[in-house]
């Protein structure tokens, strides 16, 4: 099965377009209920190539941060993070059965804040036996408390040959909206490329950040060519990148793209790549969530500045 490449217009993401979207966002209704920190402008969005649906360029991951088990205080903190996420105009929340108690935590948070209609639910199937996939997906759906997932991805390509045909059937039957695959930390890129070339997937999820840029070589251009949306995980290298950068002052160019924190620099670098649809940083703190969401507003770096950002950060 092959998908015709979409016309460049659907995939490209120029600075002019970004600024245009930011201005257009001023006319959109406010998200949330006017909490302190809520923004007057909607976040920048990018379109899913296979449907044209717009998604904010910053989503919310749940690896580690939402795995809080029965810790009620930590779970309450996660509720506030999810509440702030939607108040800031966020949509995509991503999780996996591999993430411990993250799924029930997300479900609890969504129930607490009234199940926002803006939610774009991104889940994964993670089981080596394809026959057990439906039961796992149903368990995940029950945890989230949603009628169906927007996106179901094959986690780390585990048994993708068995899972993908079922996911395509579910999509055709209206039980899913999008199908995707994931990898992380640069693993199995050759196989990811094979799936991207041979399967009509809507999304691919991979690791990409200021220091880990292998995806720029083949996968990101291929996603553009094939009209596949790209979700970027580990934009901060699980926080290690930010801990490393925190020892240094922000460079002068950060002000050019309205960045006040290294997290915004890292996210703007990621989401300014024309192939990237959204990044999914994870956090358990509302203040960090707001910093992350601020990266979905204001100007993004152009190609020249992106090169300089990568060069300068690599030299630190």
């Amino acid at each position, binding site marked *: 099965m092959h998908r015709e490449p979409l016309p460049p217009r659907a995939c490209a993401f120029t600075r002019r377009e970004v600024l245009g979207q930011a201005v257009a966002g001023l006319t959109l209704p406010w998200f949330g209920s006017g909490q302190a920190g809520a923004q007057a402008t909607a976040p920048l969005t990018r379109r899913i190539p296979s449907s044209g649906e717009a998604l904010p360029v910053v989503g919310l991951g749940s*690896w*580690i*941060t939402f*795995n*809080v*088990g*029965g*810790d009620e205080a*930590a779970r309450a903190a996660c509720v506030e993070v999810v509440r702030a996420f939607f108040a800031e105009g966020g949509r995509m929340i991503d999780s996996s059965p*591999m*993430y*411990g*108690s993250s799924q029930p935590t997300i479900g609890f948070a969504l129930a607490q804040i009234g199940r926002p209609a803006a939610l774009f639910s991104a889940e994964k199937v993670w089981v080596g036996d394809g026959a057990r996939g439906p039961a796992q997906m149903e368990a995940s759906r029950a945890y989230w408390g949603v009628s169906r997932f927007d996106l179901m991805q094959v986690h780390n390509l585990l048994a993708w040959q068995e899972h993908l045909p079922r996911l395509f059937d579910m999509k055709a039957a209206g039980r899913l909206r999008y199908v995707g695959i994931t990898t992380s*930390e*640069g*693993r*199995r890129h*050759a*196989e990811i490329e094979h799936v991207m070339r041979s399967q009509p997937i809507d999304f691919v999820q991979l690791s990409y950040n200021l220091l880990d840029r292998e995806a720029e070589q083949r996968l990101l251009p291929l996603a553009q060519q094939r009209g596949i949306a790209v979700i970027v995980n580990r934009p901060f290298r*699980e926080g290690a990148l930010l801990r490393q950068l925190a020892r240094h002052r922000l460079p002068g160019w950060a002000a050019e793209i309205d960045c006040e924190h290294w997290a915004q620099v890292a996210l703007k670098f990621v989401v300014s790549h024309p192939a990237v649809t959204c990044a999914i940083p994870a956090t*358990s703190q509302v203040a960090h969530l707001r910093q992350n969401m601020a990266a979905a507003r204001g100007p993004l770096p152009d190609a020249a500045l992106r090169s300089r950002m990568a060069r300068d950060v690599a030299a630190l």
Partner: protein
Amino acid sequence: MSEGWTDWLSYRPSDFLMFSPRIYWRLFESLNLAFWPLQAGIVLAGLAWLGWVWRDGGTPGRSAARSALSALALGWALTGWAFLWHRLAPIHWLAGYIAPLFLLQAAALLALAVHGAVQGHHDRLRRVAGLALLLWALLLHPLLAGLSGRPWTQAEFGGLAADPTVIATLGLLLLLRGPRGPMRALWALPLAWCMLSAATLWTMGSAQGWVPCAVLLLAGLAARRGRHAAFAEGGPRGHGRAW
């Protein structure tokens, strides 16, 4: 090398750490709240047992050995159920597989206490190492939380938390000798847990990772020394081949 192998070799311990240190340490707070004041009873009972052994010259007799094995069996069962299954497993899927092994270890300890012929080990160095590990598990390990800057409510007590339970077990096994097969089998899970715990704590960035490493080293050296001493004295005495 196939892509599958290179894929696995690319994983680091941090890739398997799926919870934050804050959430991990708070598990012990939850555990302590749920079982207080059992912790005080555990410490007092442990000290009473050590006093009993001290009075007998530092070598546990058969009754002391069997009572300690029974108490540790209870501790392994409680740790497996209350800590691993109910608290750790929700945030770490691997714990769900380890919890039944803790129950098996509890059953094996109990079986040895009821049916096995166990008595104090004759090697002095091994006994000293065993008593040191027991004292650490009972009195010093619970202090690590406060000394590390964490709340005292997150203290880890033997019989409830895995690390001190495992350390106490290794200490007791050093103190005892008995049927070689069952005694050897009882070492396996504590040693494996020490390695897993060290990897977890190091990956979390906790200096406490030194503790299971040091315990592994001490217990390993003392057990090896004890075996050599036994053979130097003409072989193990008692019931067949003791270990």
